[in-house]
């Protein structure tokens, strides 16, 4: 009898992988192990809708009924503590042992901890639904919220907190917000939107000290400025969860190192989503690790296919979005691959920056605008990037030329 497929991590990636195994017709045992008490759920709403709703609800990827119907065994509230690669078995924190034919590590990432003394119970991180509920309780009119880190999680949270009338200060040590992966021209628009909504953004100054007495957090910046808050939310990036893999002797390289088919250094163990680094075919095999919802979803599905022997290489173009106030940002590709940019203006103040490599190849596109104004063109750009197209810069910059026409060329 088949030992079956075991998936460690019941988030977007693990959940999708389990469903995909069944969609592909696999009929052996499928076990999904998660350390949270919830059904597999979507995390993007945690910093967005869940923060402004009166009673935030889990957006489940699969209900109990679906999991039962598909014979997916979901073991929640436990951790995988060790992998015995020789015996092909995983030991769990409740003492049980799960044998596997193929193992998928979809362990995700965890918030990077602020390496400072003085943090107490009013200094928190956002990763799980439970974290979101705890933060949500503090987002009330007049409450003072300090957000440490001007990245996406912090900024989305700032927008939600303002909607609920909280007083918000964002503290970013770099010279501007969204330093990583977002062009300055677009970061400026997001910055201005926050300021217009009443958010205080402090850039370019590190934190000298934090004092949290359990009722209030006092943050002192390097220049002496003091910020007092009822809650400090720390959003300074994420680290891949690799402890289990490292203990088992798998190769780690900014995440669990996998090949283009998402296979780790052990051929029967795969890794996918935030926890793995993989060669990105579209950029000549450059090794990257992505912390993105769509990547988690796509890699979960790809891992499922390859666990069943498809031998399919990852070929997707990275894609990411963020919503703040009425603005939506979308980025396809990795903009740091670009050497020059071409701007295309769309209706309603929306625009897209196309990033071109030295040889003229389109390597990324970053767009911002109201609602979903940039979505269609970013999607077309993503296809052009995937095709390694070298569209004429004049065509990219002209609203009169339809991007779809460039795809056919």
């Amino acid at each position, binding site marked *: 009898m088949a030992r079956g497929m075991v998936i460690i991590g019941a988030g977007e990636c693990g959940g999708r992988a389990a469903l995909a195994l069944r969609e592909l017709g696999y009929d052996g045992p499928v076990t999904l192990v998660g350390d949270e008490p919830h059904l597999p759920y979507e995390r993007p709403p945690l910093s967005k809708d869940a923060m402004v709703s009166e009673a935030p609800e889990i957006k489940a990827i699969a209900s109990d009924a679906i999991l039962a119907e598909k014979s997916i065994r979901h073991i929640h509230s436990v951790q995988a503590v060790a992998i015995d690669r020789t015996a092909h078995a995983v030991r769990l924190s409740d003492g049980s042992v799960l044998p596997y034919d193929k193992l998928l590590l979809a362990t995700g990432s965890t918030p990077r901890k602020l390496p400072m003394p003085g943090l107490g119970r009013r200094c928190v991180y956002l990763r799980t639904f439970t974290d979101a509920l705890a933060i949500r309780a503090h987002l009330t009119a007049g409450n003072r919220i300090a957000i440490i880190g001007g990245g996406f999680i912090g900024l989305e949270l700032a927008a939600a907190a303002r909607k609920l009338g909280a007083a918000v200060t964002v503290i970013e040590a770099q010279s501007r917000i969204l330093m990583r992966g977002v062009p300055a021209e677009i970061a400026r628009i997001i910055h201005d939107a926050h300021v217009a909504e009443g958010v205080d953004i402090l850039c370019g100054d590190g934190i000298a000290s934090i004092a949290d007495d359990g009722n209030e957090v006092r943050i002192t910046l390097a220049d002496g400025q003091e910020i007092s808050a009822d809650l400090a939310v720390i959003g300074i990036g994420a680290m891949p969860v690799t402890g289990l893999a490292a203990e088992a002797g798998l190769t780690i390289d900014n995440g669990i190192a996998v090949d283009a088919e998402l296979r780790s250094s052990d051929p029967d163990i795969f890794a996918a989503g935030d926890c793995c680094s993989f060669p990105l075919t579209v950029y000549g095999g450059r090794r990257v690790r992505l912390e993105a919802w769509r990547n988690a979803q796509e890699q979960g599905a790809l891992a499922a296919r390859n666990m069943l022997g498809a031998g399919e290489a990852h070929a997707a173009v990275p*894609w990411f*979005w963020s919503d703040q106030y009425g603005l939506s940002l979308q980025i396809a590709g990795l903009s740091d691959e670009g050497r020059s940019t071409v701007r295309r203006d769309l209706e309603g103040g929306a625009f897209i920056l196309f990033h071109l490599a030295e040889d003229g190849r389109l390597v990324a596109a970053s767009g911002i605008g109201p609602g979903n104004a940039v979505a269609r063109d970013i999607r077309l750009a993503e296809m052009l990037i995937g095709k390694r197209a070298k569209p004429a810069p004049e065509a990219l910059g002209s609203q009169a030329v339809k991007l779809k026409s460039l795809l056919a060329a």
Partner: protein
Amino acid sequence: MSDWVEACATGDIDEEDVMRFDHGGRTFAIYRSPDDEFFATDGLCTHEKVHLADGLVMDDIIECPKHNGRFNYKTGDARGAPVCVNLKTYPVKVDAGKVLIRIG
């Protein structure tokens, strides 16, 4: 009494494209296929209530602008994660250069 509603003129939508149509407090998406036929579906994605008319039409697929949920707009069939609920479709006819949909 006919329940056919005029949505737009045929020339309002390019081939292989989509347009939003609001009527009676509801929202719809009207499509023109690459082979010049017209179709209509509910206007909002079944995943997170996003207007599909902002999405991209490729052949007989409409892709949600937000999370890339895909549907066959001719049949309403959901085509994989994150969408799992099919899209409702509506009968369409073209009459004297007008696109009409039957809202049931």
